[in-house]
């Protein structure tokens, strides 16, 4: 078994003009999806992040406000899964509701040190 990190970008969170009913219906799909991952025993951990923040960059460690990426490229969260292969992790990620609102999921193998 190996660990993979899903990196979520964009999605409903960066959309304008959703009604409470639409937000609710979409949220339902997220809890259902995460619930399925948990039930299948592959869910390790996950965090959603707020929009505002700081970015530190370069050798001079310049601090600026916000990521201010294009909203579709804004990182909106991550989730770690434990699966047999990257194919399996990718297959599970296609069930993510983020695609309904044009978001993306990156699937990245986590580098584990020996003996950890």
């Amino acid at each position, binding site marked *: 078994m190996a660990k993979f990190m899903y990196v979520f970008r964009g999605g409903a969170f960066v959309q304008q003009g959703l009604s*409470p009913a639409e937000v609710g219906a*979409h*949220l*339902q799909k997220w809890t259902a999806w*995460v619930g399925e991952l948990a039930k299948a025993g592959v869910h390790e951990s*996950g*965090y*959603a992040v*707020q929009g505002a923040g700081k970015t530190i960059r370069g050798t001079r460690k310049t601090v600026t406000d916000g990521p201010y990426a294009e909203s579709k490229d804004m990182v*909106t969260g991550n989730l770690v899964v434990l699966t047999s292969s990257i194919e399996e992790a990718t297959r599970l990620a296609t069930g993510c509701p983020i695609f309904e609102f044009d978001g993306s999921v990156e699937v990245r193998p986590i580098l584990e040190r020996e003996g950890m």
Partner: protein
Amino acid sequence: VDDGEIHGALAILLRRQAGRLVSALTRVLGVQRIDLAEDIIQESLLAALQAWKLGLPRDPEAWLFAVARNRARDVLRRERVRGEAEIVGDELETLEAPYPVDEHTDLLRLMFSCCHPALSQDVLRLVCGFGPREVAHTFLVEASAMEKRLVRAKRVLADDGRLVEVSTPAQARERLPAVLSAIYLMFDAGYHGSLSPQPIRAEICGDAIRLGRILVDARATSRPDVHALLALMCLHAARMPARVDADGSLVPLERQDRSRWDAELVGCGMQHLSASASGSVLTA
């Protein structure tokens, strides 16, 4: 409780909370700024979506209210600093009050305010948290036309300057018929599934019944015609489990399996039916 129920409850919770929040926020921000209240709620809902998608908080309602309250407070503070608004201390105090702040009183005020003789459609939008597109479906008009109506509705509300008070029967009398027809329209939208491809949207009917119950329970609006509407809705809703067959198509009354009717709702309906048979006014 299985997963499906939790998920269903979540969507309904957000839709209902939107109505309560509009009501609570307009109390502080003023009804002239219902747009601002809606913006704040929209932001809070998106924040909820983001924060809850990987796991629910222990008390979602309180969470949502706290976020909306903080945002409203920020807006008021900023305006006070700029000297744009005179904020009196107790308005901020209202925001400090624990939630729920007498949910039903606030909802009643919002319902009756939206049922201005000209604009009953706003009930669906503000009290029940539908988007303009969904309201438009219900009233069989184009979404763009509905947007215009909603803008006009808000202007009328703003001209009134405040939400109407609904604490005595006399205050309720004038607008009650409009409120009742708005609730029935809403029930009908769920019953005939005009909002979605599904033939029936039970939760919308449930919301309409909930609003009817609030009216029946409130001293100012507990009247025979309100009982009559509630009886009608309960009795219709009781048959819903038998109205759709396994393929999702509608089953006519004479072929429905009566054992699947909701006995509790039938009972409720009969109770309200007999409560409606008092007084001297006949309703259609």
